[in-house]
């Protein structure tokens, strides 16, 4: 069977946050588990998803429709009710692009303290490569009652002024964008449209570790703890006991790195700066390094 023991043998600080495709296949009919697909491509879920999985869309479900912010307590309660989740439900995220959006949704769920949450290692890519079942049938969900607490931004979310203080204290920063964005030679991802910042470069002192380096590209699974330590600790000299802030362009790629640092390597204090470069590179007077 391999996979579960495989995840357990990779040396992660919190291996329980990852489940294998085998585990998911064995829990398809488990009423205490809710599978949640989150993708960049909004057509993908409708084109076929894991049986029983619900769709959470990062733009329409997790973001405030007006302000640049996440949904409120009321919005999150309504979302959880709609997707049939109770406080006791284990939610398991998966999606396209190496679980990029799955980790982003996982992070937003943690702002509301739904800690009973996991990510399916390898995401859609691994599930599809293994030839497992996909369906277009959207599950019929009986709405639940879910009373979410107020969103708690203090623990895992960083705001601009806090990042500035962190820079002044020479705190650890991880820039997870492409080397070209980090260097300031481009203002957006390769092959992506320019969703603008007026200035290019990076936050002073940030180390550049592109987010997808944490992944085995052939099946989308996370690298072992030893490989991740080589990447983040040995190569980039990050220290797990030091406060760390990750950022990218709008905070989605960096939620993937946040997940890897916090749960797989056990960093004590990691925050995701979701304002990221679209805020920093557009703000008047903030320090920039190239």
């Amino acid at each position, binding site marked *: 069977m391999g996979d579960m023991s495989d995840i357990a043998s990779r040396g992660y600080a919190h291996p329980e946050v990852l489940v294998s495709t085998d585990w998911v296949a064995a829990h398809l009919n488990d009423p205490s588990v809710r599978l949640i697909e989150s993708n960049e*491509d909004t*057509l993908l879920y409708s084109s076929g998803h894991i049986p029983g999985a619900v769709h959470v869309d990062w733009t329409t479900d997790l973001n405030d429709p007006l302000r640049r912010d996440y949904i409120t307590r009321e919005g999150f309660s309504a979302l959880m009710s709609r997707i049939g989740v109770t406080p006791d439900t284990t939610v398991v995220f998966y999606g396209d692009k190496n679980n990029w959006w799955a980790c982003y949704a996982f992070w937003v769920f943690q702002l509301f303290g739904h800690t009973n949450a996991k990510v399916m290692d390898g995401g859609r890519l691994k599930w599809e490569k293994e030839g497992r079942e996909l369906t277009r049938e959207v599950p019929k969900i009986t709405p639940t009652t879910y009373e979410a607490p107020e969103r708690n931004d203090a623990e895992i979310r960083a705001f601009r002024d806090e990042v500035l203080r962190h820079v002044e204290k020479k705190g650890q920063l991880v820039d997870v964008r492409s080397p070209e964005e980090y260097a300031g030679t481009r203002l957006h991802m390769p*092959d992506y449209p320019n969703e603008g910042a007026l200035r290019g470069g990076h936050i002073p002192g940030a180390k550049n570790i592109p987010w997808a380096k944490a992944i085995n590209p052939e099946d989308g699974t996370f690298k072992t703890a030893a490989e991740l330590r080589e990447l983040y600790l040995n190569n980039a000299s990050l220290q797990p006991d030091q406060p760390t802030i990750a950022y990218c362009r709008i905070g989605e790629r960096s939620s993937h790195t946040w997940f890897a640092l916090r749960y797989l390597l056990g960093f004590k204090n990691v925050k995701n700066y979701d304002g990221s470069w679209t805020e920093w590179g557009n703000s008047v007077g903030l320090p920039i390094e190239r």
Partner: protein
Amino acid sequence: MALPPRLQEILDLFATMDDPADRTDLLLSFADQFREVPPEVATRPFGRDHLVPHCESEAYVWAIRQPDGTLKLHFAVENPSGISAKALAAILDRALSGLPPDQIAEVTPDIVEAIFRQNISMGKGMGLMSMVQAVRSLAKAAA
């Protein structure tokens, strides 16, 4: 210049759909109609000169001149998650195959926005518009 009639019909159909779910269903029905380039036109490994640049779905495009001087478009989409690319390929084939090259060359990438609207996400837009641009370039070269 007016758009080719079959393309205009498809755009009109999308324009009537305000419910995102209906739009998604229509896009999926096009994706389901997608047929890969037949082996008499091209076989793997496909020539790199037919690869659409900037398209994550690894889309390939061919424009084959027919005896009557019109073009027949063919596509391949190598990424199994390339649903949007398959939908657009099926739409372009349906709307443009059988037209003379100079008419196909008039079609501009902004049709992508009219077709996908809110279903277009950050990365996809560039790749899909690049597919239209690739068709346009082949048609120009054939004109």
